[in-house]
């Protein structure tokens, strides 16, 4: 077909016109084959600049457009919009960055002009090989799957469920509430936990749009954002798995406690009356705090940071719930002597320090200590420790509560592999970006909330559940179509030999392996066009739209001619 390329050079006010001899660029570029028109304009990104471009495209019935102006990061979308309005496929357009890459990097006008000419020629060389690409639209399923029925899972389900959006809540055990239902009270305000959980479970049961699967787990989750196919199976019997389709998945699988027998110096399992914080919560919930010999203890010690060395991180909530334990004890056993062994008190945020000061006033001992060793002494337990001045001290107590670190659930790896979510070095689920996308993952449509992504207290967990609903409600709108990435990669069926190198480098899980034909297949809806697979493919079977080898080769050739 006969190509007619329009080249438009933006003066960008003083920015380009002062630093580059635009007329020289125009003369250098006009004689190039297929170039129909070369013009300059004061400010192309302004309103009348855009109108000018639209008229030019229509008047000269241009087939390709090259704009020499600022960085694509600034106005590539603007000029693509202009193409669309002028009924020119937005991908038959190339932006040469002669501002950041030429005008702003040198005072020498001649050098800047020379480079500008090269860049514009390169853009023209490339645009000739562009092919028009169509935006795709796929319809999305608004429903959501929530895995894990703890506080995080319940909160997310309540937030998301509505008339147009069903929520499927899958819980491994036989009832909702997760670890938290074993606690009697919350530490902020010492409010009874049961009210919070009952209120949420009642709301869930009465909400017609939330379908709960108890004693069940997710067996398979394949697909992409907007269309996941899920298989849910009962944990203990071999019944037929239930198949559902959802648009997004929320992982709220919670966490477990570090097993203290990995730190023998605390004598867990060896000495009686050495119990973990979870065991103490359950004992407290049952109302009777008793030693093994059914006597009430009159001295209790809580040891913080159990397993912090081994795990390599502070689990954030143990200091606060240890303060809560002190209050439980003072309430139930008025003259019990309570002491806490800690290394660093982690009580951030506006309410925690006040809670600590008030607890301290109930004469609870706080001992900063290190390298603690426990030994049995008759019926009691002797805590040998170094105090702040590094000299050895001892303390005899009846009962010891260990506050172990929080670790990922043991089925975390299974779920990670099933959903294609990656895990960080500690085994928790890894978020897409630590700061800006704390609850989304590199697999679009799968969100991680609560302790499944790291130690967190209850109110932060609730915030993250709401944040997940914020993300889903804003991107998975009933009836609204999804627009996946256009510039995706493709793998030629006849050239692919099935060496699976691309599978290892794809960070979005967008490539699956066809076992019968022994070839890799790109799912163009998940693919985000990062190009890893194209670079890794040894034989060139993989290529990516809009960045084809020929397009890049011509661009480079013209630039270095």
């Amino acid at each position: 077909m006969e190509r007619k390329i329009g080249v438009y050079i933006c003066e960008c006010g003083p920015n380009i016109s002062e630093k580059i001899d635009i007329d020289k660029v125009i003369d250098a570029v006009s004689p190039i084959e297929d170039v129909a028109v070369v013009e300059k304009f004061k400010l192309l990104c302004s309103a009348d600049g855009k109108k000018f471009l639209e008229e030019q495209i229509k008047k000269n019935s241009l087939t390709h457009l090259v704009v020499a102006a600022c960085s694509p990061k600034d106005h590539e979308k603007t000029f693509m919009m202009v193409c669309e309005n002028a009924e020119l496929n937005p991908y038959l357009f190339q932006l040469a960055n002669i501002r950041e890459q030429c005008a702003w990097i040198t005072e020498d006008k001649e050098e800047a002009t020379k480079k500008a000419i090269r860049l514009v020629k390169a853009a023209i060389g490339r645009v000739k090989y562009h092919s028009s690409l169509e935006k795709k639209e796929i319809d999305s399923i608004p429903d959501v799957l929530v895995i894990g029925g703890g506080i995080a899972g319940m909160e997310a389900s309540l937030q998301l469920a509505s008339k147009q959006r069903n929520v499927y809540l899958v819980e491994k055990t036989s009832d909702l509430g997760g670890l938290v239902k074993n606690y009697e009270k919350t530490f902020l305000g010492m409010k009874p936990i049961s009210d919070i959980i009952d209120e949420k479970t009642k709301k869930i049961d009465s909400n017609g749009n939330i379908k709960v699967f108890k004693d069940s787990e997710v067996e398979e989750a394949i697909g992409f954002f907007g269309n996941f196919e899920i298989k849910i199976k009962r944990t203990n019997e071999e019944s037929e798995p239930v198949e559902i389709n959802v648009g997004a998945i929320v992982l709220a699988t919670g966490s477990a406690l570090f097993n203290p027998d990995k730190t023998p110096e605390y004598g867990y399992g060896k000495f009686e009356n050495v119990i973990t914080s979870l065991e103490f919560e359950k004992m407290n919930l049952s109302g009777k705090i008793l030693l093994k010999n059914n006597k009430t203890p009159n001295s209790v010690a809580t040891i913080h940071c159990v397993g912090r060395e081994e795990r390599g991180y502070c689990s954030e909530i143990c200091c606060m719930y240890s303060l809560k334990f002190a209050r439980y004890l003072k309430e139930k056993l008025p003259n019990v002597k309570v002491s806490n062994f800690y290394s660093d008190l982690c009580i951030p945020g506006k309410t925690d320090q006040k809670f600590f000061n008030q607890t301290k006033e109930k004469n609870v001992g706080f001992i900063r200590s290190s390298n603690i060793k426990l030994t049995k002494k008759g019926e009691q337990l002797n805590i040998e420790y170094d105090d702040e001045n590094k000299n050895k001290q001892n303390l005899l107590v009846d009962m010891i509560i260990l506050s172990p670190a929080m670790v990922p659930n043991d089925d975390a790896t299974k779920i990670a592999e099933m959903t294609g979510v990656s895990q960080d070095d500690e085994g928790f689920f890894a978020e897409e970006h630590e700061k800006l996308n704390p609850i989304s993952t590199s697999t679009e449509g799968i969100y991680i909330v609560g302790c499944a992504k790291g130690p967190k207290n209850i109110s932060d967990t609730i915030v993250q559940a709401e944040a997940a609903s914020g993300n889903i409600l804003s991107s998975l709108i009933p009836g609204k179509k999804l627009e996946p990435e256009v510039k995706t990669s493709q793998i030629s069926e006849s050239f692919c030999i099935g060496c699976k190198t691309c599978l290892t480098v794809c960070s979005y899980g967008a490539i699956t392996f066809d076992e019968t034909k022994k070839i890799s297949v790109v799912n163009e809806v998940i693919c985000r066009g990062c190009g890893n697979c194209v670079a890794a493919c040894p034989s060139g079977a993989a290529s990516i739209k809009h960045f084809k080898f020929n397009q890049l080769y011509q661009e480079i050739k013209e630039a270095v001619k």
Partner: protein
Amino acid sequence: MTKALKLNKSAEEGILEFLKYLLESGKVKGVFTLKRISKNSAIAYSLITNPDELKDAVPFYPLMPVNAGKLMSRFTLKEGAKKPVAAILKPCELRGFIELIKREQGTLDNLYIISSICGGVFPSRTEVDRSAEKKLPKYWESVKKGEISPDLRSVCKACEEFIPYTADITFDLLGNNDIDKHSIFYLNTKKGEDLAKDMKGDFSEKEFDRKKLEKINEKRQAEKKKLYDEIGKKMNGIDGLVEIFGRCIGCHGCSKVCPICYCKLCEFESPDSEYSPSNYETELRKRGGIKVPPGTIYFHLGRLTHIGISCVACGQCNDVCPVDIPVADIFKKVGESIQKMFDYVPGKDVEEEIPLVSFKQEEFAEIEE
């Protein structure tokens, strides 16, 4: 009668002077020819643009490391030559290029084809053991006399197409007794004339020496008969094929170097010709055993059907075969038999359509009767 240019320089110097003139006068921007390219004087086709580089050029050296027709196709595949380029091609290389052009694999725009009445080439292996230099004097003697030198490739000895059909300029080589005294360029086409017109040298009207070329052709035909009888004995029926191709290791080198084999992915290397486990199981049930990897003879038969009609018998496939299977002799014999059916000479005329891919109305009638 065709216009001819005569230079009283030996064939080797004459052609170099002519090429130098073409480059220096700017008539062409580049010249395709054989050239010594390294310390150990390996010979390879080169694209020369600077006249001083012509000092190492050896245009009529009796070697064909690669079929230049395939190179010209690669040169003009993506986009025709924009600037004029001259190319020294042997007749079978030119015919190979013409067959490729018929398959949209190249164009003749801006190309000036200089060919020669070809004296044949040595097998590539002769270059490996450096024996080519030693055989040159005997070779040029037999060229002058129009005889067949024993060191030639088997297909060259039996080649009847040693006169190029559509070259712009034909250099009088085979059977020309005084090639060390002067060189004669037959300017067959207008393009050929334009190239040579302001060259210093005497122009005249000359005629091919039909009689002499006839005699050379008879010698080649006798040689061909011998070749066909010998290969005919071996190739009787399927057992014969198993006998000849038994050694084939499936390296597909013959298809890689063949000027007519232009597919980006050969059908016999593609997924469709792979055996799945169930294919193997049925084969074992039927015949108890199968060669692995399978399909060696299937490949050769398939290639014969695909390119037989266009095989120009250049002999490259013989030289590349690591287990010395006489692939070229077989393809020449079978190719010729197919071509005779349609009395088609591959590469003779770029306008003539390839029989098997074009359909003529009256052919339908023949089948009806």
